[in-house]
């Protein structure tokens, strides 16, 4: 279980919620409400206060790099640091199947990053995070740049993750997607969070 208690960072909080493994929590709210900042705080990418436990283990007990492999954040705009796609994967030889599942050709691993479309970049960012097999996925509008078919493929992969016992915190503006994937939701407004409610 992911238990977030009184999480505060500049502009957001306090936010508290609990998320069972195998479940998805949707985070909603208007642009600028603090959704992205909340995900960054959970991943410990910005200074923050409050406590977070994953399967009863305190976040502070783990070194930050180790924590981030357990809690995988995929930002809305991710970065690239090498020329080819394969250089961004820890195990490029095992990545082709994952890419195919997300609707990206397996040979994209040999492509130059420059030739990737926005949608391909999003899906490759999800793939490289999934390859680390995190217990929790933090996804910031993962399908915002995708067409319906690509969105369905991504959602199928995410359902597979939930079935495998992973938890997902999903930032989305898509009400239909929220109903398809999420089990509970919180709404952010001006950095303040509503109480956690079940979806449906």
């Amino acid at each position, binding site marked *: 279980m992911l238990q977030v208690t009184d999480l505060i960072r500049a502009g957001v909080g306090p936010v508290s919620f609990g998320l069972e493994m195998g479940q998805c929590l949707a985070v909603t709210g208007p642009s600028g409400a603090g959704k992205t900042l909340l995900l960054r705080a959970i*991943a*410990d*990418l*910005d*200074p923050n206060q409050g406590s977070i436990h994953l399967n009863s283990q305190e976040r502070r007990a783990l*070194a*930050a*790099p*180790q924590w*981030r*492999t357990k809690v*995988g*954040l*995929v*930002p809305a*705009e*991710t*970065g*690239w*640091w090498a020329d080819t796609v394969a250089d*961004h994967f*820890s195990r490029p030889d095992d990545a082709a199947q994952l890419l195919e599942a997300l609707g990206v050709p397996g040979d994209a691993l040999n492509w130059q990053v420059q030739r990737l479309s926005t949608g391909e970049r999003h899906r490759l*960012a999800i793939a*490289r*995070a999934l390859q*680390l097999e995190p217990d929790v996925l933090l996804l910031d509008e993962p399908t915002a740049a995708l067409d319906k078919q690509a969105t369905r493929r991504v959602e199928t992969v995410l359902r597979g993750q939930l079935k495998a016992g992973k938890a997902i915190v999903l930032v989305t503006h898509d009400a239909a997607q929220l109903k398809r994937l999420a089990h509970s939701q919180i709404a952010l407004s001006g950095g303040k969070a509503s109480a956690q409610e079940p979806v449906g």
Partner: protein
Amino acid sequence: MSQYIALTYWDVVLAAVFLVINGALSIWLDLRLERQLAIAAIRMIVQLILIGFVLKALFAISSPWLTGLAALTMGAFAGREIWARQERALSGVWGYGLGGAAMMFAGVLVTTIALTTQIQPDPWWTPRLALPLFGMILGNTMTGVSLGLDTLNSSVHRERPAIEAQLLLGASRWSATAPFVRRALRSGFMPIINAMAATGVVSLPGMMTGQILSGVDPTEAVKYQLLIMFLIGGATGFGVLLAVLGNIWRLTDERHRLRLDRLRDAK
């Protein structure tokens, strides 16, 4: 044997005519550089005349405390220059202090070792030798440190998404920023590497030229110049390394986060 030829002030004025011609050309070609040229030239005249008097007094008094104070003052000005030359320096006291402290540490260390083991004047802090030597080492270290820090802070700021993407995949702050640290170190080392490569072929260094003009045997002047270049290279290396590593330590934190909030806004 000294073949030193003393200059009159009239000789100096005559040389300044070339600068006046440049100013006139700037007005004629509408380059609008004449004002900057004039201000820079006047600043140089005032600064050099003043430092001439200050050095004359320091050499006459020959006090270790005053020599140290002069070195400290030089370091304070150079530290401010390092800070001012960066588009995005660290904010607060770190912006001024880190580069200045790294430069002073490297400059003082190398100058002291050179004075006590190689040049060996009596006393070792003799201002006539210590201050010009320290000035040359400090000036070059300042250039390297400011270039290194400017490159580091600008590239880390620009490449934030790429660095954070690696942090999110479990990289440590050191491995995620390593390419930018390497780039900054290369940038800081480049002026002294270029200077060493070009010395003697493209240019004759100022100190060596000065010694030759004063009547010193060219082979003796070369030995002094080699000593100075090695000292400058060593001090620049230490200074740049300390400043860049200290800067990246400050730009990240113990939870392996990138702390761009510790940079001041771009000028």
